[in-house]
């Protein structure tokens, strides 16, 4: 997956977790949780979905890397490159 595809994947996961939210204007460099109503439990589900769908393990200490779409793509790209 490319970084763009990874961002798209994350957006799809968020859309599934909070289907009523408009995600079309989400900015890549601002923390996701500052832009949409996503609580810590919802945030955990992004990580859980990545594990469930792609087998990617994100350790608790690395959750911070998934704060924005851009940082998520940068962090996940080496792990999802082959997918």
């Amino acid at each position, binding site marked *: 997956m490319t970084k763009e595809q990874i961002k798209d994947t994350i957006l799809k996961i968020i859309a599934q977790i*909070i289907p*009523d939210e408009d995600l079309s204007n989400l900015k890549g460099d601002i923390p996701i949780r500052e832009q949409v109503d996503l*609580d810590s*439990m919802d945030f*955990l*589900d992004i990580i859980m979905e990545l594990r469930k769908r792609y087998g990617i393990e994100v350790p608790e200490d690395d959750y911070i890397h998934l704060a924005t779409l851009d940082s998520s793509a940068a962090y996940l790209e080496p792990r999802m490159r082959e997918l």
Partner: protein
Amino acid sequence: MHYDVLIIGAGMSGLAAGIRLAYYGKRVCVVEKHYRVGGLNSFYNLGGHKLDVGLHAMTNYVPKGVRLAPLPKLLRQLKLKAEDFALCPQRMSAIKFPDRTVRFNNDFDFFVQEVIDNFPRQADNFQNLLKTIFEYAELNLCAKPVSAREVVSSIISDPLHIDMIFCPLMFYGNAQENDMEFGQFVIMFKSIFCEGFARPQAGVRRILDVLVKKYKACGGELKMRCAVTSLKCANGRVESILLENGEALTADRILSSAGYVETMKLLTDYNSSKFNSNAGQLSFVEFILVLNKEPAEMGYETTIVFYNNSTRFDYRKPDELVDVSSGVICCPNNFQFENPLPEGMLRITNLANFDLWNRLGEEEYNAQKAAWLKATLKEVVKFVPDFRDSIVFTDIFTPKTIHRFTGRINGAVYGTPNKTKTGRTHLDNLFICGTDQGFLGIVGAMLSGISMANLHVLQKI
């Protein structure tokens, strides 16, 4: 047999934890000692009547579309839809003390106005209390316990006002006598006054059905009539789980909803001096009365009444079998259902003393049940229309009954007053969820299971 996670107890918290873990691919098994799921919120059939235990109403009700509240949060976490529980909102509830009635429904502004109308001189203080409540981080698992009595009485100066606020919050989820932890107070305040009551047409059965179906659909295993007899410990861990049927299981992690002291008693290295003082003391008796008509036909439209027959409210283990001076009167019919329930019903809940009930022989036990039914009815008809001639069927459960079916020490439905907020125990792989972890009420119980599953299993790789 080996599992990633073994969950003790198929109540609200155990099933909710199970759904989370099974959904995310964990190999999970819930073991339940009863032949029925639900634990402290369950149901039974007697004399052709369908009766509920526990749940009077589901608290935390918010209409569909509201997102940032415990109920929608738990629905998202359990991958359920708002329609799944088929919740119907209450009509109107009330806190009734002598000469004073504060009503509330699921519209918070209505409640605020009722409080201000009843206590006009406390209006500013009450607004200050609301501010304190809304600014408090009640879900912080590491917060230091604070006395709610102290906080509230430092803001509101009328003791009657204070007691009328405390009364429903204590009855619906407080394990401590006469005081309450402030975080718990905030949780209960929001769940009852800011959000509100609702009930599925089919009562607690509906909620449990949804949870069990979801859990099984996610691949979770549920073993009924399967009590845990002991948890074998070694090297600071639970090494294996021994079941009543002789089977031994192993699991990487164990979540127990059986209660803190109850769980500690299962440990092979259990030391009573270390844990015994923690047991909860507060239990209840419930009188379930089936009527030959709908209470609305008698002009009674109230959903739940929290009554107290004096100006001071005492929430403690009574010195007698039952304390009828205060209680809860729930009318399951008085929710906004599409179709009426099959029969009229009232449920009366009073504080009760486990030791005194437990000590009675069978004959005396039954005689006392009948005597206290009479006593509570005499009290209750001061607050609701006299319905005594309409009763066609009665069933009563006592602290002893609760103990028998749930294994709770002292039949303490709200568990120990010393909650284990983080869920951690002295053993590395044993965690507490449910009542003794500290989120109470039905929604609280499910959120407890969810939070503990997240914190101690899903967040750990």
